[in-house]
């Protein structure tokens, strides 16, 4: 204990020094290396950004900074020196002494990381009390202070609530408070804003930035979003497949990246294309209301999709955008209003729709993992709609399946694979091919890229655009991501709390003047500029007030 205590103090010293860290994970095939010899140093008061796509090993490294590895993983080589002691050599009891006290952790999903059975304040005070740093009363008083600093509502009574009584953004800030409870030397932030809506993300981000600055805490900030980390980090490490791609201070990485991979991550703007205008509408939704039971989720929604064009429906969670998709597919019959497809009024209930109509409107889901039956091979996934709608059998059917696979840039060797043998991007391509197999006229894409890494998502978007050019298929594209809208849309519809707040051609949408909510959305998207967060805070606060008053 003495050795550790003596190091607390001078700023700028190295507080964490990781050398040659290697971590292996157990898989069915055996042990695979997921962190391949990483060196990392963190100085007092410094914020280090770890960035990479899924499988980069960034979370694993972040946890290793607490001397922790997930079940099924183990550290095979390297040292993790924290204040002179190697965490990989310490016993569990010695590590417990450090965790929560000297090194704290903020998890991605606060909703899952808070214990549902206890009040927030009790979970806050637990760390200090268990470690014998404070008594419960002074820890409570301190919590109120921190809650106030993090702009949580009613800081005096906030902690008395249970996790389920608090919104996602507030819960995430409560977890930041909990991490600060013992004034740690290091906080590891593991994608703390990824699960949040953009307008909430920026609030949490600003709160984190403030407290970390105030407390002079060193931090490791893990994320897949370079623009987010740019707002906080002094230094950035770009990781890929457990290897370091490049390391440098934030401005240098943003302005003069040396690795191709970093350049690719920086390239935020997906391919643009010319907008098309349609001669006729394939789908028209007129003043539709819809409800789940007694809870009304859509209010007077009207929009139309032109033949061969893309209409993007943008909104945050709870905006009703996915409900709109369900209404168009017929899964949720609307309680008011009409639907027209290809010039004819159609029944709002799926049960009464003809097979041909079902064939012409296809849906692609957000999660490719759950939209493919794990027990069906690619052959069956694509073959079923072919025989079901078009009566194709035998060799003809196989030929058509291969043709479809070519359209989604997969080769015939995929025919007999199960979904679990495909990557996330390949699965999503397969789902698109399934819609194509039906020869759909309108494909509803429900957040089809949001479960995928950025580079993979861009491939999917490009595929969708190519298909539209060749097949004249129309898309109703549901998304929360404005970058995606910029790439793919011809028309944009913005939804908030079940209502359309703005709609029109894409170019008008991205050019001022904006509806206040649209502007709030637009200004909430982090930019590749370290000064962006500070510059935007004032205007955003005014906007948020305007929207909440409206």
């Amino acid at each position, binding site marked *: 204990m003495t050795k550790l205590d003596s190091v607390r103090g001078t700023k700028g010293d190295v507080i964490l020094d990781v050398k040659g860290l290697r971590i292996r994970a157990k*898989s*069915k*095939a055996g042990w695979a290396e997921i962190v391949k010899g990483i060196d990392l140093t963190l100085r007092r008061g410094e914020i280090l950004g770890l960035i990479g*796509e*899924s*499988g980069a090993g960034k979370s694993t490294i972040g946890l290793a900074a607490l001397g922790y590895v997930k*079940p*099924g993983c183990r550290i095979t080589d390297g040292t993790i020196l924290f204040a002179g002691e190697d965490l990989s050599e310490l016993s569990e009891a010695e590590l417990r002494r450090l965790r929560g006290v000297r090194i704290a952790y903020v998890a991605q999903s606060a909703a899952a990381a808070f214990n549902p059975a206890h009040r927030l304040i009790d979970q806050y005070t637990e760390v200090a009390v268990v470690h014998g740093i404070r008594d419960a009363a002074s820890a409570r008083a301190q919590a109120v202070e921190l809650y106030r600093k993090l702009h949580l509502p009613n800081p005096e009574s906030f902690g008395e609530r249970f996790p389920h009584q608090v919104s996602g953004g507030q819960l995430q800030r409560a977890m930041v408070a909990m991490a600060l409870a013992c004034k740690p030397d290091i906080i590891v932030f593991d994608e703390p804003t990824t699960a949040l809506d953009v307008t909430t993300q920026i609030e949490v981000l600003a709160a984190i930035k403030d407290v970390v600055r105030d407390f002079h805490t060193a931090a490791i900030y893990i994320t897949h979003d370079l623009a987010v980390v740019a707002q906080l980090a002094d230094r950035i490490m770009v990781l*890929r*497949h457990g290897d370091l791609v490049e390391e440098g201070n934030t401005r240098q990485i943003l302005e003069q990246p040396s690795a191709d991979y970093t350049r*690719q991550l920086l390239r935020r703007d997906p*391919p643009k294309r010319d907008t098309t205008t349609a001669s006729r509408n394939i789908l028209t939704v007129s003043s539709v209301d819809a409800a789940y039971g007694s809870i009304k989720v859509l209010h007077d929604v009207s929009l139309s999709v032109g033949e061969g064009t893309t209409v993007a429906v943008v909104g945050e969670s709870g905006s009703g955008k996915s409900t709109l998709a369900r209404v168009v*597919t*017929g*899964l949720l019959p609307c309680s008011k209003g009409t639907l027209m497809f290809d010039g004819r009024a159609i029944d709002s209930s*799926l049960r009464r729709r003809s*097979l041909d109509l*079902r*064939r012409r409107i*296809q*849906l692609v*889901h957000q*999660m490719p993992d*759950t*939209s*493919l*039956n*794990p*027990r*069906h091979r690619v052959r069956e996934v694509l073959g*079923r*709609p072919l025989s*079901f*709608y078009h009566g194709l059998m035998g060799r003809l059917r196989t030929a058509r399946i291969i043709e479809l696979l070519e359209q989604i*840039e*997969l*080769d015939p*060797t995929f025919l007999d694979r*199960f979904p*679990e*043998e*495909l*990557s*996330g*991007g*390949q699965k999503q391509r397969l789902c698109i091919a*399934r819609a194509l197999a*039906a020869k759909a006229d309108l494909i509803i894409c429900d957040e089809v890229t949001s479960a*995928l*890494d950025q*580079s*993979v998502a*861009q*491939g999917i978007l*490009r595929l969708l655009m190519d298909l539209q050019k060749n097949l004249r298929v129309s898309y109703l594209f549901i998304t929360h991501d404005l970058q995606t809208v910029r790439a793919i849309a011809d028309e944009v519809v913005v939804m908030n709390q079940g209502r359309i707040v703005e709609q029109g051609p894409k170019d008008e949408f991205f050019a001022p003047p904006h509806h206040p909510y649209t502007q709030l959305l637009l200004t909430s998207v982090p930019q590749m500029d370290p000064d962006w967060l500070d510059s935007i805070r004032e205007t955003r606060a005014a906007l948020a007030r305007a929207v909440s008053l409206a």
Partner: protein
Amino acid sequence: MSTPADHSPPLNIAPADRPHRQDPGRFRALLEGLRRAPVSAWFGLVIVAIYVLVALFASLIAPYGEGQVVGSQFDPWTAQHLLGTDNLGRDTLSRLIYGARNTVGIAFLTTSLAFLIGGSAGLVAAVVGGWVDQALARLIDILMAVPQLIFALLLLTIFGASVTSLVSIIAVLDATRVFRLARAAGMNIAVMDYVEVARLRGEGLIWILSREVLPNILPPLVAEFGLRFCFVFLLISSLSFLGIGLQPPTADWGSMVRDNAILITYGDITPLLPAAAIALLTVGVNFLVDWFLRETSGLDDET
């Protein structure tokens, strides 16, 4: 404007986007798993195999007939009667062997029937939902509100204790448990997007049940079959022991214990043998199911 995902040839999977694993065939995986199976699983497998063989070839193996009186009352263990004779002078070993056929066979038949009824009703309830589900679930709730053994006793009093009524009563009662499991497992699958895709496509109930849902809940159902079998087997044995199950002269392990229980007070363990036979099979099946569950759920119990 290019990413590696798009420029690599199709087969060459983009590194950022790798598949999780290459693993064909569930059956082969199971065989592979069996090779690495722990001793307890092998123990279970061997026991079950032996019981099945004995049950199938009972009449060939047994030295005497099922109801044949071959000696005097309660003969001790001798060369002629390896395990002595029972209260009516019948050969205990032979009755033990025939008991494998009768007790195990009837329990197996009952469990299968229970799965047929409960499984299909549960799956239909899960997939169709709505009032069908509600009605079935409430009916089952009420049936389950009465303890199984008591219900069985009541119904057996009403309908009389014959093999047919025994099998059908217990199958119906046990079907309620199967219903619950099949419904719960089915619900987990029924909310999956791929089932929604099939619905949107216009597939019928039969397709959705047999092609979309069933293949995905087979492992828990198989495991449950093992557990339900144990339960039914113990229930039938208990009923027979109470004198209300299989009726004489059918050789049955439960009633064999009851008929000869008096010997225990003289320190003779023979009457415990049929009870041990029941216990051994249940242990074997339980060990097998335990291993199977661990293997198919992919859960490793270690931290």
